[in-house]
C-alpha cells in the first residue's frame, strides 16, 4: 500500500492505495465522491472524466498514485459557492441535456474543459470534442445544444424544447 495525497475540489485528501488502484476507485471508494462514474473498462465511455491539474482525464485510465500531489476537480466541486448550478450545469438542466444522469458528470466535466479551451465552439467542434463521451439516452441533441448555450450562443433555432 502506498500513501497518496492530492487536492480534490480545493481540499487536501489522502489515503492508502494499492499500486493498481485507479484514480476513479480512489475517488469513489475512499473519498466517497461517487459522482464520478465507471461505465466501461476500456476508457471509451467518458463517464469518469475529471480534471487533473486543469486538464480533462479519464479517471479510469490513471492510477491513483499518478495523481499524488496534483489538483483534482470532480463533479462534486463544480456548482457555485452558494450551491446553485454553474453555467454549464444550468444549461444542461435548461436544455434537457440529461436523462438517466449516469454519463452526465463526465459530460459536464468534458464540456467545462472544452469551453475553457474554446469558449465559442461550433456545433461540429462540440460534437468532435465529445468523441470520448458516450450517452445512451439523449441522442446527444440536447447535450450539444446545452454546451452551445453555455458558451453564450443563441440556440433558439435548434429544434423545439
Amino acid at each position, binding site marked *: 500500500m502506498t500513501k497518496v495525497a492530492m487536492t480534490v475540489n480545493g481540499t487536501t485528501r489522502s489515503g492508502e492505495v494499492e499500486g493498481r488502484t485507479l484514480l476513479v476507485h480512489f475517488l469513489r471508494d475512499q473519498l466517497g465522491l461517487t459522482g464520478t462514474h465507471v461505465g466501461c473498462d476500456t476508457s*471509451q465511455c467518458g*463517464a469518469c472524466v475529471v480534471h487533473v491539474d486543469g486538464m480533462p482525464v479519464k479517471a479510469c485510465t490513471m492510477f491513483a498514485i499518478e495523481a499524488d500531489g496534483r489538483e483534482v476537480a*470532480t*463533479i*462534486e466541486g463544480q456548482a457555485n459557492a452558494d450551491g446553485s448550478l454553474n453555467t454549464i450545469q444550468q444549461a444542461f438542466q435548461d436544455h434537457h441535456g440529461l*436523462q*438517466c444522469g449516469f454519463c452526465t458528470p463526465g459530460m459536464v466535466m468534458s464540456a467545462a474543459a472544452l469551453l475553457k479551451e474554446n469558449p465559442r465552439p461550433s456545433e461540429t467542434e462540440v460534437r468532435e470534442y465529445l468523441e470520448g463521451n*458516450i450517452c445512451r*439516452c439523449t441522442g446527444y441533441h440536447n447535450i450539444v445544444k446545452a454546451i452551445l448555450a453555455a458558451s453564450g450562443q443563441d440556440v433558439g433555432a435548434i429544434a423545439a*424544447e
Partner: protein
Amino acid sequence: MPKDGGIGASTKRREDVRFLTGAGNYTDDINIRGQAHVHFLRSDVAHATINAVDTAAAKDMPGVIRIFTGADFEGVGGLPCGWQVTDRHGQPMQEPGHPVIARGKIRHVGEIVAAVVAETPEQARDAAEAIALDLAELPAVVDMKAALADGATKVHDDLTGNLCYDWGFVEENREAVNEAFTKAAHVTTLELVNQRLVANPMEPRVAVGDYNRGTGDHTLYTTSQNPHVIRLLMGAFVLGIPEHKLRVVAPDVGGGFGSKIFHYAEEAFCTFAAKACNRPVKWTSSRSEAFMSDAHGRDHVTKIELALDAQNNFTALRTETYANMGAYLSTFAPSVPTWLHGTLMAGNYKTPLIYVNVKAVFTNTVPVDAYRGAGRPEATYQLERVIDKAARELGVDPIALRRQNFVTEFPYATPVAVQYDTGDYVATMDKLEQLADLAGFPARRRESESKGLLRGLGVNCYIEACGIAPSNLVGQLGARAGLYESATVRVNATGGLVVMTGSHSHGQGHETAFPQVIAEMIGIDADMIEIVHGDTANTPMGMGTYGSRSIAVGGSAMVRATEKIISKAKKIAAHLMEASEADIELKDGAFGVAGTDKSVAWGDVCLAAYVPHNYPLDDIEPGLEETAFYDPSNFTYPAGAYACEVEVDPETGKVRIVDFTAVDDFGNVINPMIVSGQVHGGLAQGIGQALLESCVYDENGQLLSASYMDYAMPRADDLPFYKVDHSCVTPCTHNPLGVKGCGEAGAIGSPPAVVNAVVDALQSGGKAVTHIDMPLSPSRVWAAMQV
C-alpha cells in the same frame, strides 16, 4: 395554454440537480458496512461439459471468504421465464432449466461457472483466476438455421432439438394468405436480418445482497426497471423467500432500455450469498461482463412477402422469421418475436390478410430479450423495407403507395388481432412532408451531387403497441404476470403529498412529469408533490417500466388514486362549509360551493383530515390516503412518419445522416420537453442500429464484440440535430389522460428510414442495390456498390 407546472408544460426536471452535482444514488454508490465482493468466473467457451471446477488453490488466496459453484445451488430454483408461448400446433414451447451457476454444462460465453466472495473486488478477481476448470469443449451452434438442421448439436440434451417453438399467427389465415398470393398482380419479396444488439445502458448492472439474521429479512439493491417483478420472480421461483421477507430496491438507475427488466442470475446469487456468508455481498458488472451477461436484443432473420393487386392495394402479407433465443429463455424472451412482433405486422396499413410465422431457436449465445421497442422495431423494419422495395419495383412514389394503403377509419381491427383506437396517419405524413421540406429534396440532392456525394431520402411510417395490457388478455396469450399498475397517493396534513408508484424511472423523468398531472388535477403547485418509486418496501405492487407504459398505465393509476383523494376531500369540504357534497367544486387548489362565494383551501381540508376536530367522524375515516390499481382495457397505439436524408460517399461507402425528421402522434403530451428528449434518444439508438451497432459471434460461439473497442456505439459526431414534432394528436380513447407513450418510437421508426435512404442514394447513383443488411458500415455500403 397550460399553466406553469401542469399538463403540457415543459417543466425543467427536478431530478437533474442531483445528477448534475454528483449527488445521485446509483446502485454502485451503495456500500453497506461489512460488505464483501463477488467476482464471477465466466466461461470463455460457448459450449462445454464441465468435468471439474477445482477451487483448492483459490480458496486459500488472500481475502477469500467462500467460493460457490453449481453444486452449491442444488435445490435452488432456476431463473424463471415469465411468458409461455403456444406453438401453431397447440403445443407449449420447449422451456429449458436456467441455473444460477452452470451445472454439468456450459451453454454460452459468459455463463457463470463459479463465484468468489472475498473482502475486496481485487481479491475476488485474483482468486477467480486461480480456479482451474476442467472442461470438455463441445461444438457450438450459432447460426439459427444450422441449429434446426437434422443432427445439429443440441444446446439442451433434455429437449427435442433446438426449436423452442414454431408459432403461426393468425394460424387460421394461413391458407387464405397463401391463396391471396397466388392471385396477386405483384409480389415483392425481401430477405433481411435484424442484427443482434446490446442495450448498453451507460450504468452497468449492480447487485448488492443484504441479510438481517436478527429479523430474517433479505434486501437486494439492484439496477432494475421493475423491482416488484424481481422480488416476485426471485422470491417465489428461485430462492423461496416469502415476499414480505424480501425487499428489492432500485434507486437511481442509469438507463435500462429493456435490459434491466429481467431477473438475472447475479441478483439471485448476491441475495443467496448474503445469507450464506452472513455478509452483505456486492457485485458490480464491468462493461465486458455486461456484453456477455446482459440480455441481448433483436437477432431475427426474416423473409417477408407483400402481395398487391393491379391498383397497388396491399392484399396480403406473409412472413417467416427465425428468432434467436440464445442459450436460455430470459424473463420475457418468448413474447418478443411473437405477441410484441406479430401483432404489429399490419403497421399503418389496411392489408386484409396477414400470416406471421416465427421459429424461435436455441443457440450457444447469450439470451436475447426485449430491447427498446422489443419486437415492434423488427416488425416495422420488415414492413417498411418491403413496402419501399415494392414501390421501386412498381415505379411508384413510396409515399404515395403508403398513403394509398393507410388505415383511415378508426377504430380499426387489424387481421393480426389488435384494435387501433385512434390515429391519423394522413395528418402525420402531411406534417412530415412539410417539416422535412420533402419538396425541396431534389434541389438538395443536386447540391450533394455537385460535391460528388450521393444523396438519398428515406421515408417510412410506424405504429407501435404501448402500455402492454390488459391482464386478462395477456394471460390468455401466455403471460405469467398481470400488467396493471398501481399508485398510492398520501396527502400530508399540511397539504403536500407523496405519490408512491409501481412505475420505475431510469431516465424518463417521472419525478417531474408525474407531479405535473396531479398539480393539474388539484390545482396546486407541482413542488408540493413528491414521487417515490423503486423500493418494494415503500411502493404498492407494480409491474415497472418498459414498453412505454409509465404514463399510460402508471400515470392512469395515479389519476385514479388522485380522483379517490379528491372525492373524499370534497366530502370533508362539504362538511366544513355545511354544504351539499354535490355542490362542491375543486378549482385552483380550493373547494368552492357552486353558486356561492364560500370556499375552503386545499390545505385546510387536508389539515381537517388529519386533525379531525371539526370532521364528520361518523361518516368518513380520518386521513387522506388512497391507492388505485389500474388495468388498461387495450394497448395504446402511437404512430408516426419519419424522414431521413443521407449523403453517401461513393469512394468510401461512408454514410452521413444530414437530416432526420420525426413526426409522432403520442396522444396527449404531459411534458413536451421530456417527450422530445425520449424521441431523440430513440432515434440515436435506431440510427446506431442502422449504421453502427452489431453484436457478433464467430462460428464457435465466441463473442467478438465484448467491449466498446469492438461494438460501435453512436457518438455525438455520428448524429445530427433532429427535427421532432408531436403536434399531431389523436388522444387515446381508453385511458384517463389520453396519452399513448413515446419511449420507443424513435428506435422503431428510424432504422427503416435510414436504410431506405441509403438504398435511395445508391439507386440515384445508378447502382442496382435493393437491400443492404444493417449495420450499413462503410465496407458493406462500398461492397454493395461494386456489384
